[in-house]
């Protein structure tokens, strides 16, 4: 009798251990990768910014020196690089994000009217988001080619698109919009589909114009999607790299060289790696992104707190 109870107890407690341990077996694969390839690098990356490391040998702690250099030492090339890169990144974000919100919003609204072939158009506008950035920039550099491209030839222009300003920015914005708006468009479409027809019909009875309906019904109903896309799109565009690299090579005269290009150049470019400075630049860029996202979030949800 006693032995039976003991065996039962042992059996059930080993089963308990089994039941208790099995969640960790499901979680462990991901958590291991998360630890090694995300958590540790995140902390490590911040640490490197406080060293003068060149990726070989042992890192040498230098405190805030790198930050001082890039932020305050106006005689250092890294300082020039940092401010030029940050400014260009900011300009890029300022130019592209509004278009990356407005254009897909208009497209989604047009698709929502469900005219003929709307499914085809939806597919077409979404397709570029699935193409590699390097292929996209190669294709568009042909389009904007001063001598052979359709733009100069069909409209009888003589613009040096990628090697003069402000046209270089135009190229970057156009290509970025073409490449990325598909994602936001689908989000807005899903949102628009959820708006009840009744609102529009009631507005029609009251004699509202299309514009009024758009601003009083459509936009407020898309608040959630707009908030999400504004924040996500801003973050994404802060990480710009491939377009200026392959379309304008950072030019003309470094006027489109974004911060991520300097970071890559300093850390992994030819010659010795200046990982400490590059990390400090990356941390600053990261801080900018986080602060701006927070500001956007607070500003765009302010009405929810009243």
């Amino acid at each position: 009798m006693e032995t039976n109870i003991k065996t039962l107890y042992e059996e059930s407690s080993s089963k308990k251990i089994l039941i208790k341990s099995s969640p960790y077996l499901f979680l462990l694969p991901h958590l291991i990768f998360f630890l090694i390839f995300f958590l540790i690098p995140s902390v490590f990356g911040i640490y490197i910014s406080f060293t003068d490391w060149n990726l070989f040998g042992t890192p040498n702690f230098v405190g805030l020196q790198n930050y001082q250099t890039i932020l305050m030492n106006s005689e250092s090339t890294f300082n020039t690089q940092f401010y030029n890169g940050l400014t260009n990144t900011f300009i890029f974000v300022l130019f592209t994000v509004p278009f990356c919100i407005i254009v897909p919003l208009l497209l989604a609204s047009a698709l929502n009217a469900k005219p003929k072939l709307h499914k085809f158009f939806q597919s077409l506008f979404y397709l570029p988001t699935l193409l590699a950035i390097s292929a996209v920039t190669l294709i568009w550099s042909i389009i904007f080619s001063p001598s052979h491209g359709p733009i100069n030839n069909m409209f009888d222009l003589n613009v040096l698109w990628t090697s003069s300003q402000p046209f270089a920015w135009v190229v970057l914005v156009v290509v970025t919009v073409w490449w990325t708006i598909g994602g936001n468009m689908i989000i807005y479409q899903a949102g628009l589909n959820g708006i009840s027809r009744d609102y529009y019909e009631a507005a029609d009875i009251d004699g509202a114009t299309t514009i009024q309906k758009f601003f009083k019904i459509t936009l407020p109903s898309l608040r959630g999607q707009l908030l999400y896309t504004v924040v996500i799109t801003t973050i994404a565009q802060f990480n710009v790299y491939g377009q200026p690299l392959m379309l304008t090579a950072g030019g003309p005269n470094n006027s489109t060289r974004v911060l991520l290009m300097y970071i890559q150049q300093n850390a992994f470019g030819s010659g010795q790696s200046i990982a400490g400075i590059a990390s400090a630049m990356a941390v600053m860029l990261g801080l900018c992104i986080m602060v701006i996202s927070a500001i956007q979030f607070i500003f765009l949800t302010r009405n929810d707190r009243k």
Partner: protein
Amino acid sequence: MSSKNNVISKTISLIFLVLMGIIWITPLVWGLLTSFKSRQELLTGGFNLLPINWVLDNYTHLLINNRSTPLLRWFFNSMVISVSHTFLVVIIVSLSAFAYSRLRFKGRDSLFVFLLATMMFPQIVNLIPLYVIVDRLGWVNTPFAMIFPGLAGVFNIFLVRQFMNNIPIQYDESARIDGASDFKIYTSVILPLVRPVLLVVALFSFTASWNDFLWPTIVVNDVDRMPITPGLQLLQGMFVSQPGLLMAGAIVAIIPTFFLYLFAQQYFLESMSLSVGVKG
């Protein structure tokens, strides 16, 4: 009255869509046509939409016997990397999502919220140390450097977990009454039911892996080991004055994702309704 407005708005929308559609499709059509134009024509033939002579030279030059920019080799590398990565993503994500959705353990929800919060952390800071870790592991210039690090991602787990949360717990419970273990429930009950969202995860993971640009340029410097997307940067450097070759390279690079899209469009397009449902 409102049906007349309806027709007007449909017409205006159609006109707008056609205009935008032309802008959208032109680069692709132009690129494709240019890839069939001979070098001769591109130098001296003036400006034409269609090739004067359709040639395959650009493709043969890049694909056959090409040591300096081995496009075919690059394509193969990308395929190995992206397929392996996608396969692993689906397994790891579904296992994790199952744990966060179905299993009860201490700290489950706090851990999940923590993981989600880390998604906000800017990835740029990781770039340099990630290279160091990959280098110490001996993975530089190997496919592993591009297959494994991405498995740390959390967003897909979030997506699949949301989907799993909508599966009634009764399915699990009836299996448990029959004596099924957690793992059996995972394989026999949950996995078959989450196939749609796993397919979406697979499609997006493959595409992201295939299109990855900056990271591969950091961890691969051996020309033969490159995937195709960073390889195109090399191609640009080598053939900057030969648009025909550049277009052929670009077209080859976009073929897999293009055809994936052609056959699985609905999964890409409807993916948003999976995540938008939780917009809040």
